[in-house]
């Protein structure tokens, strides 16, 4: 079972691989401009966000995923299980097909992890997108690819500002790590929310998610970031363990935080119900 799954996904991986590789240099070349496109859509989409507010109240089916993007706790659990499974598949492929793991070859493993996880996340969350009538599935996929790159750029900037090493030998690791982080944090949000800055602001900055799907993109994303932050703690210690290298323990921390975030978001969904706002701030 695992064997076949792995095979199919490694094939898919081959399909996606070159595409992803082409994207790799892009953060470097587009770095200067990348700052600009982000505010730009906000002005164009700012009005659209307001219109969406009106359409938000929709009926929901109790089992799984409904057509308009809302999702129940069971559905969320299902989504989490799939994403978790494919993270596992990524590790499995790296270990048994490329005989690499995070410690021995972090760049390759990270590349495999994010390139296997990315299509899954894109497909699932694009189906859960907001406003499915006005926004086609292919558009959601397209914007999530854009989200992947810009999210990776943001994550890389954050990591470097917090002290991630800069240097030729660290560059691929940093890039692949930031792509993985982007898959865990930015891609679901871009797939679901699109470029609506108002929604982004409400969900991520004000931390006022309205629906289950917003819990699903908010809590695991913060979990991954906070987990990565804590994961950096053992790095300066002189234990001389190979996993203390950048970005290995940060990855462990981020994935751990992501999983904890998923569990917490499930708890929120179950406890708070769907119509209450989460009051964190």
């Amino acid at each position: 079972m695992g064997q076949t799954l792995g095979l199919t996904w490694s094939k898919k991986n081959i399909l996606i691989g070159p595409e992803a590789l082409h994207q790799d240099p892009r953060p470097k070349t587009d770095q200067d401009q990348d700052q600009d496109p982000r505010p730009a859509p906000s002005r164009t989409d700012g009005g659209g966000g307001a219109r969406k507010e009106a359409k938000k109240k929709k009926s929901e089916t109790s089992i799984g995923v409904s057509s308009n993007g809302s999702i129940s706790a069971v559905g969320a659990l299902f989504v989490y299980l799939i994403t978790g499974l494919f993270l596992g598949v990524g590790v499995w492929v790296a270990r048994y097909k490329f005989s690499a793991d995070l410690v021995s070859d972090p760049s390759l493993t990270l590349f495999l992890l994010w390139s296997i996880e990315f299509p899954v996340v894109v497909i699932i969350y694009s189906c859960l997108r907001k406003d499915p009538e006005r926004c086609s599935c292919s558009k959601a996929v397209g914007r999530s690819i854009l989200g992947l790159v810009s999210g990776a750029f943001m994550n890389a900037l954050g990591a470097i500002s917090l002290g991630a090493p800069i240097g030729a030998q660290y560059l691929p690791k940093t890039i692949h790590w930031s792509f993985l982080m982007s898959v865990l944090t930015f891609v679901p949000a871009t797939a679901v929310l699109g470029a609506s800055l108002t929604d982004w602001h409400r969900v991520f900055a004000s931390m006022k998610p309205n629906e289950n799907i917003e819990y699903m993109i908010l809590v695991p994303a913060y979990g991954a970031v906070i987990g990565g932050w804590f994961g950096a703690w053992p790095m300066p210690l002189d234990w001389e363990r190979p996993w203390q290298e950048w970005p290995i323990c940060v990855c462990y921390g981020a994935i751990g935080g992501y999983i904890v975030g998923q569990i917490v978001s499930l708890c929120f969904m179950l406890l708070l119900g769907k119509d209450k706002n989460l009051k964190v701030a």
Partner: protein
Amino acid sequence: MSTEMTCTRLTILTVAGIFLQIIGLSIFVFGFFPVKPTLSGVSGSESYLHPLCDSEPNTNESEIHPEKLRLLYEELSGISSRYDRLILMVIDGLPAEFVLGKDGQPPWNVWKESMPYTQSLLANGDAIGYHAKAAPPTVTMPRLKAMVSGAIGGFLDVAFNFNTQALLDDNLLGQFLRIGWKMVMLGDETWIKLFPGLFMRHDGVSSFFVKDTVQVDKNVSRHLPNELNNDDWNLLILHYLGLDHVGHTGGRNSPLMASKLKEMDDIVRTMHLRAMVDRSHDQGQTLLIVVSDHGMTESGNHGGSSYEETDSLMLFIGLSSNISDYAGATNNLAFQVDLTPSLALLFGVPIPKNNVGVLVPGTLNSLRDFEQLRALELNSWQLLRLMQAQLPSSLFGSFSCNCFLEGTCEGFGSDISECSGDKEKQLICLFRNAAVLHGIWKSKKLTKSSAVEDFNRALDAYNAFLKTASEWLASKTTEKPVLLLGLGVSAMFLSCVVCVTLFLSLFKEVYNGPKDQVCSLNYLLNLEGVFILAVLLILVISMGSSSMVEEEHYIWHFMVSTFYLLLLFKTVKSFSFSRGLNSLGEYKIGSIFLLLISGRLLRGWHQGGVNWTHFTDISKWLEQAGGSYVKWIQLISSFLVIGLGVFTLFRTGSKRKSVRIQAFGFSICGFLILLHAWRYQDDMFEVSTNDGATVTAKVIYLILSISAVGGALVLPWSMQKKDKFLVAIAGDYLYMIGSAYILCWCLLQLLLQQPINSGPILLLLIQILAVSCLSSKDVQVNEWVEIAALYYMGMAGHFALGNSNTLATIDVAGAFIGISSHSTILSGILMFMITYASPLLFLLSLVMYIGGKLRNHSLLAHSDTDLGQLLKLKLGFPCLVPLCINSILLMAYTVVLLLMRNHLFVWSVFSPKYLYVCATTVCTYVGVCIVAATVAYTLSVTSFLRSKTQQLVD
């Protein structure tokens, strides 16, 4: 606090708290760090004369030919040395129990069978072994120092030798060198660090790779056959690390232990047979001493003071002692420091000055009677000299030089008194008894009557004195007075409580007054506030880990950057997209990005720390790229610092004449600094007293101090505007004074710091300006959070300037710029200013910060408050924040140090860190004092002038 806190009361309580802290800190420091009362200099021929006789030290002794000096020593001591060669074999971490057994029982069979040759030597009486008690810390370097100098080293003397690990005190190897010995060292490179350039040949191995238990010893033993064939050395030191490594990896019962002991036994056998038995007797004799520097616990660790760790070995092979039974050869006790006087007397060199050890009794058995007593006498004299340095001279009043030369003085007949009373008197009395009995024996030796009995009495009397004196001296250096420590810690705790209570009471007043109660909790417990407190907690926790102390710069940078990111988050959160982006928001985000980028550059400038220093960083990269890049960086930084500083000055007060003068002075200074850098920096190391450089530096000091202090004093008197509020005017002045302070400090640092650090100084200035932009525009972040963040940024910058928690990174070279004659105090102050450049810079920026706050405050038209209230809220509260943080950190670190007093790294990691913490405390005091004085002065002057003008108007 039931009553209203007035300004006076606040000041008095704060000052009282600070004084309590200073007192507590000094009590603790003097209690914890043993201040060793050392005698300086090196023992020479005067050590063979009685200490109470004033003899002029032979000044030209160092010019005497070594061979002549050796003969002189031999003649003066009256002891003929039988040995001409010494092999000192140090087996790191070998507990004496492995060789000699414990409590009179022979060692376990597994150990005994591993060392057959050594055991046979012990059984035959060819060797005599001692349980040599080592003093904590049971770590290699202090133990080696103790073995060769006989002194139990204090920590502060290590701390005061800033850059060198070399042993500068009087020691055996130095004495051997003076009589012309040739020395060879094989093994642990600690010896080479301790005695650089002393060895004729050496091959050091590193103790760094603990997993390596084989190669580390092979590297020592491979030279052994050659060295044993060579005849050109007098002292051969072998230091085997393998056994310690076996212990560290597998503990006492490691399966590797038996084979390692066998290896050591084989080496002992080789050396004994080759160097001692085979060597013909006309060449003199060789003494082989096998010692260990410390023991190990069951799990193989060491550093503390348990019996297992302090039970080290001292094994003499080749002393023709008359001990023939196994128990007599193994069941002996001594102290590790006893090795020094024994070796000194056996090999005919003066006993090192600060030795507290006594002769190991068994080593004397081969000497003749008079030589034995003479040796004990010399040892006693040396200890008496050391005691003289610590006891009042009145205690020695009953002696005079003549008593000893002629043996005739009052009350000094043949009576032997029973010694009692307090310890000091008892010591004098014991010495007198021994001297008297020695005299009796000498006089009776001529008449040959009952010599044996008198000899034994004199011997016992000497041993009694030596034992008591040694214990007394040793306890003087190692004892930690519990009372002092407790008193110090409780005083610090009390002051910490006072500071925090004051802070909390003011906190209530500041935040409860104007705000409505509903949102206050939400307002107070915001994300940044919680984070600032969490940073404090994390710092306190991380101080308990030695590697976190070593790599503290990572924590500071990580925390400060996270704080910037939180600020960014908060700013983004405050946007409302329905109204679109406003310029204020962009301005703020720009400032935060500036902070992030400059913070990351600062982090990358110096790698810092202990473990990862070899990683490349910007400074290394620039230095490799060539000196011209560094010069360009310096030039650009200097120009930008002057530009930014003068711009900040003019931004508020361009119309004032005094400000223009000030700016002119600073510009002149900047160009002088550039001149100094371009003309003198290269040859600074060649010509230490370059007149031009010194004069330039002095002129810079003068102009800077006049501009800063004069500006601060004069500016408040030049009040012109009558229409503005008092607070606003004072705020303007403070802003100007603060920016002048900052500019002055940056320029001073440009002069003093290494050229490579001019980049970080520019970045720090940029950070301060960015923070001042942020705080003047931002009212969302609480005031105390901002000030705490400034303190944290100062500490992050401290590490960014290349400092670390080891004493090795202190920049000594800069401490002599502009000083023509050697002055410890002046260069100490300069060194302090260089080391604490960044924390002081950020504390000084508080003046500017308070000024900015006052200006904003005045916009609220809230100027009816009286001066005291104003001072309390606008000055007292900001000043209390750094004081509180510092006192909490100081308190926490004191507790950590107390808990870690038996830790392996207490002297290498925790104690240097504690010195830095103390210096940070001083730095905080200085900074807060300057801020408080400036702000109080400016506010009082402006309010005085305002009241005066109002009277005139009325």
